[in-house]
């Protein structure tokens, strides 16, 4: 049982990390709030389904198009909504949340509800690791999560675009004087975040069905991981998702499943009270407490 819990804990953590990454890039790293994140996740999933099933397009192509469309949605959101309220965080949060709400419930209205809405897995079959059966898709998820984390870390620390993202969040005026077009990079960061949400959706949704409720859960989970790990820190996301992922899996296997969420919530509250900026954030100690 222990070994199985360890393996599935890792898988759960990878899922959480994958979910959090897109949210982190926009909110944590670039300082732009995108609370329509869960909606974009679901949107990408449904879009891929539509391309595949209603239009008969090849699956790989459907996936690529839907990721691309999500990125476009991200840019549109920035241009039409965020641009007008940039800097007013509460307004950004509520406006994007309102839009996300509208998108998700629109799918529900058009009856995108039911068990027939699933995406095919990339790899069929499973492998036995020390007596525990793990399907290839889940292993694929772990690999993607690791790969993306590495990529994002290098991206935000070593590429011009990545560094610009961090610049506009930390000190926008200075970034502007250095010739960094804050609006361009803000839009790009939203596009990236949306794209990452789509990637996460494509890889994770095959494990179950595409459900509108999933959108809400994704948002809360992503937020939780980012808070515990520290907004903006890629390493933090990794550690936080491991912590929360394992806490959830252990609780599900050794206690009862409905205690799972309570454990995560307690973990969040505890971290916030003890070290508010998260475990690995870049915020200075002085700015946390008054």
């Amino acid at each position, binding site marked *: 049982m222990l070994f199985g819990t360890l393996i599935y804990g890792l898988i759960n953590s990878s899922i959480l990390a994958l979910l959090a990454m897109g949210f982190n890039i926009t909110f944590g790293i670039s300082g732009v709030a995108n609370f329509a994140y869960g909606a974009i996740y679901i949107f990408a999933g449904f879009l891929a389904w539509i391309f595949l099933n209603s239009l008969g397009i090849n699956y790989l192509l459907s996936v690529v198009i839907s990721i691309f469309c999500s990125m476009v949605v991200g840019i549109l959101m920035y241009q*039409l*909504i965020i641009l*007008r*309220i940039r800097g*007013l965080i*509460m*307004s950004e949060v*509520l*406006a*994007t*949340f*309102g*839009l*996300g*709400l*509208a*998108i998700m*419930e*629109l799918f*529900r*209205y058009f009856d995108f509800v039911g068990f027939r809405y699933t995406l095919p897995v990339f790899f069929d079959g499973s492998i036995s690791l020390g007596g525990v059966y793990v399907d290839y898709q889940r292993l694929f998820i772990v690999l993607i999560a690791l790969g993306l984390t590495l990529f994002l870390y290098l991206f935000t620390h070593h590429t011009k675009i990545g560094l610009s993202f961090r610049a506009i969040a930390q000190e926008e005026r200075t970034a502007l004087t250095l010739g960094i077009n804050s609006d361009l990079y803000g839009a790009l960061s939203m596009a990236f975040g949306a794209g990452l949400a789509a990637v996460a959706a494509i890889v994770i949704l095959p494990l179950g069905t595409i459900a509108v409720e999933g959108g809400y859960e994704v948002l809360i989970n992503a*937020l939780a991981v980012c*808070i515990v790990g520290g907004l903006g820190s890629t390493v933090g996301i990794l550690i936080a998702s491991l912590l929360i992922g394992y806490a959830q899996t252990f609780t599900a296997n050794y206690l009862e499943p*409905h*205690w799972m*969420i*309570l454990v995560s*919530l*307690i973990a*969040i*509250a505890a971290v*916030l*009270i003890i070290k*508010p*900026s998260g475990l690995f954030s870049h915020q200075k100690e002085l*700015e*946390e*407490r*008054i």
Partner: protein
Amino acid sequence: MKKRKERIDRGIKARSEDIFALCSFREMLYLLVPRAIPVLGLLGLSPFLSAYWQEIFISTAIYALLAISWDMLISCGLVSLGQSLFYGIGSYIAGALNYYWGWPPLLTLPVATIGGGLLCTVFLLPVLRLRGIYFAMVTLVIPLMFLRLVEATRILGGTEGLTGLDSFPTQLTALYVIQLALLAALFGFRRIMGSDYGLVITGINDNDRSVMNAGINIHWYKTQVLFLASAVGSFAGAFGTHIDMFAGMPGFALDYAIMPIAAAVVGGMGTFAGPMIGAFILVPLSEILRALGALRIVFYGLFLMIFIVALPEGLFHYIQRKYHQFERWVEVEK
């Protein structure tokens, strides 16, 4: 010749400052009419609504109280994503007092208000020292925690909650109790924020180190503000319990957390009247849209989004500006 827009206070505003308002009836009316509208509008019109609309009205008033409570916290720099905590705690206290000991609403309401205020303040005390955004996140998490705790431990009625509680003697009593509470909160908080005490609170929001530097213990002031806000929120919860004759897990629902914030953003943060107006727009709107089924939330979300983008300062700020000032085009001076 280039022109620019200039905004100046209206003559009548300047004439009605301070004691000069007593000069003539025009000035007095200028000051009284905005205050009279909510008072007369609420107290005067509500008894004539149909039973269905009276229920909506009461529900709106409850949300308005939560929105005003939220606004008080934001005036001090505390962003609360957990108004549902206040509602839930107030709801359970009143419910438990009524269910286990048979206390009537007359007693449960005050006890739940003060007790709820104290309890919530104690829960949130450790987080008061954190910066705004962290306070916000913890307030989001704590009500969800309580929800799961009640579900898991099955205390206080567990998932079914406490049912069969007492209601108010008449619908009219309920109507007037909530309205008087709402008006008291509205005018009371506005008065507080208009005084020097309110100035200190605004200062804490603006620049807390500077207030610390003035020899003022900001944590004590924040605690007081938290108590006031949570007491009002707990009252809303206690009142709602007796209206629904039920206290349970839905008291901690996200709806009670999100709606007040939306109302405040739509109506205008920091003004107390704004959140109230926001609630009186959003709640009936949500009710009217119910006929559309699932499409209702779609419209709701879009409404919220468009409003925030088009009028980020909020309705009340806009109305206030138009009422007190006028704009005109002037030539740009050389």
